[in-house]
């Protein structure tokens, strides 16, 4: 379909060699190509430095706390060590990685006008969405792995070769953390598709996860006396389960001062994984639906 030999001497008219243009790659190949360049952009960006700084700061705080207090329950056992340091910090790192790499992923295409460069190419919006999602995922995984390495470094220092005794549960916990990351990124991308301004997308997700969901969780438990199984911030507790064991699903206690009954909920594996997968699928469908209909006005 492309014009070939042209007589002009201009560089713009230097023809392509026969077969220089193959068939436009398929959706998956294009998504991989886009994610590669988007990831490269992330790696060189200030946001990546910011994210790495956050991970190092979290790791440093945990390292300092453990070094100072040397809690015996923690530094005696690899499962407990990872359960305390890794599982708690991972959800935090994932939240920040999701916001930093995903918050403006789609909104930024509109706000920064990078979409005008991409959308003029023979590429489907689905592919752009998938490519950017993959890049954000990869950048987030790099951050998560760095955090894991910091925790493992600590574990090696305190437990020596015993640090490897919890390798199996740690891998299982890491896998659940990845699932949580997939779901959270999907959620962030949904909001990024909803707004054409990056700041709104970032703010809404940050406020929801840092405050909104906590308030909803409290209200649902205390007023509705119902388990908040539908909250992503609630089910992320299962990241720790391979290391700490699965707690009782519903725990009834009494306040020693007011004598009021207290009900504590803990998500089950099934709930956690189901809700994460559900979030991932539904937000991907929703985000894509929105992105397909957004116009570059």
């Amino acid at each position, binding site marked *: 379909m*492309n014009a070939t030999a042209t007589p002009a001497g201009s560089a713009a008219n230097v023809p392509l*060699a026969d077969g*220089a243009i*193959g068939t436009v790659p398929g959706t998956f190949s294009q998504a991989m190509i886009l994610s590669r*360049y988007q990831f490269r952009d992330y790696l060189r960006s200030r946001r990546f430095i910011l994210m790495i700084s956050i991970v190092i700061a979290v790791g440093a705080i945990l390292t300092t706390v453990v070094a100072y207090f040397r809690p015996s329950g923690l530094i005696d056992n690899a499962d407990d060590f990872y359960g305390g340091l890794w599982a708690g910090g991972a959800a935090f790192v994932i939240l920040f990685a999701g916001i930093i790499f995903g918050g403006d992923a789609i909104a930024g295409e509109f706000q920064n006008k990078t979409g005008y460069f991409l959308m003029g*190419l023979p590429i489907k919006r689905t592919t752009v969405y998938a490519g950017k999602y993959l890049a954000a995922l990869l950048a987030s995984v790099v951050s998560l792995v760095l955090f894991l390495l910091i925790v493992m470094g600590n574990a090696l220092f305190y437990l020596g070769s015993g640090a490897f005794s919890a390798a199996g549960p740690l891998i299982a916990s890491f896998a659940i953390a990845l699932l949580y990351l997939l779901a959270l990124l999907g959620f962030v991308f949904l909001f990024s598709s909803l707004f054409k301004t990056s700041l709104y997308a970032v703010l809404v997700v940050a406020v929801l996860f840092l405050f909104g969901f906590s308030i909803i969780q409290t209200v649902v438990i205390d007023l509705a006396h119902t388990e908040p199984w539908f909250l992503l911030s609630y089910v992320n507790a299962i990241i720790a389960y391979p290391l700490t064991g699965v707690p009782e699903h519903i725990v009834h206690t009494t306040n020693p001062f007011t004598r009021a009954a207290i009900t504590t909920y803990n998500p089950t594996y099934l709930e956690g994984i189901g809700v994460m997968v559900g979030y991932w699928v539904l937000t991907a469908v929703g985000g894509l639906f929105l992105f397909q209909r957004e116009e570059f006005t």
Partner: protein
Amino acid sequence: MRPSIEAVGLTKRFGAFTALDHLNLKVEGAKCMGFLGPNGAGKTTTLKMFTNLIFPSEGEAFINGISVRDDRKRALEVCGDLIETPEIYPSLTPREALEMSGALRGMRAGEIAARTATVLEEVKMSEWVDQKIGRFSKGMKQRVNIAAALLSDPEVVILDEPSTGLDPRGMAEVRSIVRELKKGRRLIFMSSHILSEVVDVCDEVALLDRGKLLFADTLANVSQRLGGDVRAVEAEFAFPLDEGILSGQIGSLPEVASWSRSDPQRITLQVKGGPVEQARLLEQLASMRLGLLSFRESRSALEEVYLREISVGDA
């Protein structure tokens, strides 16, 4: 297959505002079509629908007979475009941005490298090939965007005010690039509000105002619209012309319908007939030994038609 773009009843509404109103336009073959109109006429809206950046409220846009809305990937496969002034990921270099663009288009790695060097040379960005785009000025970014649009040697080129953000030298270079592109078997569809740019590089022109197509025709016919068989020609002389020579010798020539003087050394002649009559007049003027420096058809025909058609729309 001849390259073509076609708008069929193409309409775009933003709420109650109709930005483009049932545009029917088919451009086919290797040529450059200038898409003219005042601000808010609907030019960019039209081009955005051809590249699927926005979606029609009614009607359809086709590239090489393929609906952009139904199969954007196949429709845009043959198309290089530049809409507004796109931003490229700031951490990437021009080489990487073009690599990405080429790879997404399915170009082979070796050819991407060769074409990248070629098109960056053409837009005078070779020395910046490995610098981060985030540090570039608007004009430099626009040059990279033009290079990206030309990378795959597309047979349909859609350009939305391509000289936006460029300095005068850059604008001249863009015109030169477009002129060179015309030498290939390409269809170039270029919006602009710079009439001289359109006159300089385009073969045909479509005029849009308030979302409606006023006319689409060749530049020659546009001139014809203005003055029928009479065309304006500007002549410049090395010495001031005597009134007697003007009214006596020049004004009495059979090809000259009327004349006016812009300044002592420059006159505008309304010439009856076409190129043959112009050539004969030029020979006669030269033979008078009045120090004739230049003789060219006035480029104001399009401008006059433009202003006339737009003012009719205003009324």
